[in-house]
């Protein structure tokens, strides 16, 4: 009796028997730019890459290639973060900054959604809105920081304003683009069903562009974090950016590096939350 065995690496069944010749590994096609990678090897490679980075850093720190005052070792950074976590300082800073990002981001998104929707749906409104926004968005937001301080002072409102400026204009353009990718036939369908223009916009065009709008929100949330830190570096009395500026004064590079890493992790977590919830919300786009 011939026993069928499954080749662990390729998943292809092959007959087990005396090896007459080297079995051809069917299914291992090479694309012109190299072999495909399965999920497990991909994750493993990614982890190794991270470890490599940390190893290089550790090596540089332990050989004291750079003065430890400027480049503390990973362990020193971790220790410092641990201290700040224990004292509650880290959590407080994170809470303040997160609050600011979400307020600024929500404000921008809540305004960009309806405006982008209208700009995408009507040529007239597009002409009113888009050229102006195109002009404004090329102005460096950073340069507005002094002005915003003069306008609204240095409290939370100024942080919201900077985040809003950095995200709102781009969001409007991204939302209106998303709306324009909805096939025209969808609007015709709405018309033949006897729906009014407003209903076509709200019941058909808006939900149809939602997956792309979600992607736009995901991308701009990342930016919101960047703008927050910019705002907090310049003028703040609390928050993660503030702590980083303070640390610079005392040459506390361990705090700076630790906080930068935490900011990276927060960004990654936010992005993943939106990605996964997007995948759940828009499950219908993935077929069979």
């Amino acid at each position, binding site marked *: 009796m011939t026993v069928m065995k499954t080749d662990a690496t390729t998943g292809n069944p092959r007959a087990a028997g005396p090896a007459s010749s080297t079995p051809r590994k069917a299914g291992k096609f090479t694309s012109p730019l190299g072999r495909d990678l399965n999920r497990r090897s991909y994750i493993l490679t990614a982890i190794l890459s991270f470890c490599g980075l940390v190893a290089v850093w550790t090596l540089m720190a332990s050989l004291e290639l750079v003065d430890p005052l400027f480049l503390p070792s990973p362990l020193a950074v971790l220790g410092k973060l641990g201290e700040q976590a224990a004292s509650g300082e880290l959590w407080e800073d994170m809470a303040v900054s997160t609050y600011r990002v979400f307020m600024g981001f929500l404000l921008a998104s809540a305004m960009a959604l309806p405006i982008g929707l209208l700009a995408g749906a009507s040529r007239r409104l597009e002409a009113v809105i888009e050229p102006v926004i195109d002009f404004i968005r090329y102005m460096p937001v950073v340069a507005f920081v002094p002005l915003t301080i003069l306008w609204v002072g240095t409290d939370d409102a100024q942080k919201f304003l900077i985040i809003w400026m950095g995200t709102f204009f781009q969001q409007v353009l991204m939302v209106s683009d998303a709306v324009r990718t909805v096939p025209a*036939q969808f609007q*015709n369908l709405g018309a*033949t*069903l006897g*729906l009014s223009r407003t209903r076509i916009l709200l019941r058909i065009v808006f*939900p*149809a562009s939602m997956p792309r709008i979600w992607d736009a929100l995901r991308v701009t949330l990342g930016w919101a974090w960047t703008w927050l830190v910019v705002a907090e570096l310049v003028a703040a009395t609390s928050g993660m950016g503030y702590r980083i500026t303070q640390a610079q004064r005392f040459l506390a590079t361990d705090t700076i590096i630790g906080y930068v890493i935490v900011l990276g992790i927060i960004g990654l977590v936010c992005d993943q939350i939106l990605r996964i919830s997007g995948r759940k919300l828009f499950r219908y*786009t993935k077929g*069979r």
Partner: protein
Amino acid sequence: MSTLVRKKLEISQLNMSFGDVTALDNVSLDFHEEEFVSVVGTSGCGKSTLLNIIAGLQEPSSGSVTVDGTQVLGAGRDRGVVFQQATLLPWLTAQGNIEFALEPGGYGKVERSRIAKDYLASVGLSGFEDMFPSQLSGGMQQRVALARSLSYQPKLLLMDEPFGALDALTRRTMQQLLMKVWEEHKLTVMLITHDIDEAVFCSDRVVVMSSRPGRIKTEYSIDLPRPRDEETFIHPSFRGYYKEILSHINQGVV
């Protein structure tokens, strides 16, 4: 007898031009109650423009379209349209897509659900109610679209090359399904197609259009027995109609 049959759709002296291009040149056509009419012609002959005008999605340069004595001034629920692409809303299930179409008609929630189920069943999709469009094959999607257009009982069904994007085998199945459904619901249909087989198989009348400018060249009454089914394709007169129509379309092309 024919004078007693009520006119369902009256198209009179339609002209449509896009800049210098005359898409439709003085097109007049009448449809009777429960008549199945196909319009065939090479691509670019303006047959889709004609359908869009009847649907109320485009405004003609001149001329008028009248349904049951009322002039068409825009899109509306008295005319159902099946587009070449199924145009199902991707975030709604098969059932949900039909219920969506019923909503503006003032049906109650329970009624919507029942009607949607019934019409899905009539296109052979019982058991697929909860599938999203992306989970359905092209043919199945077009079945849902057909069920959707029938569900709110329009006076007129307009079909714009509905099976043109499907593979040949699926197309055959869909044509037969369309005949079965038409026998059940008996409504006036205008089918735009470039598939002569399809036109002859389905229709009471085939209208041939010439291109540039889009004109009605001639029309044929198709005297094949109903109900139509796979036997129709091998009916002795089927090939005759096919040949004649084809030669007419080719005139002036070569």
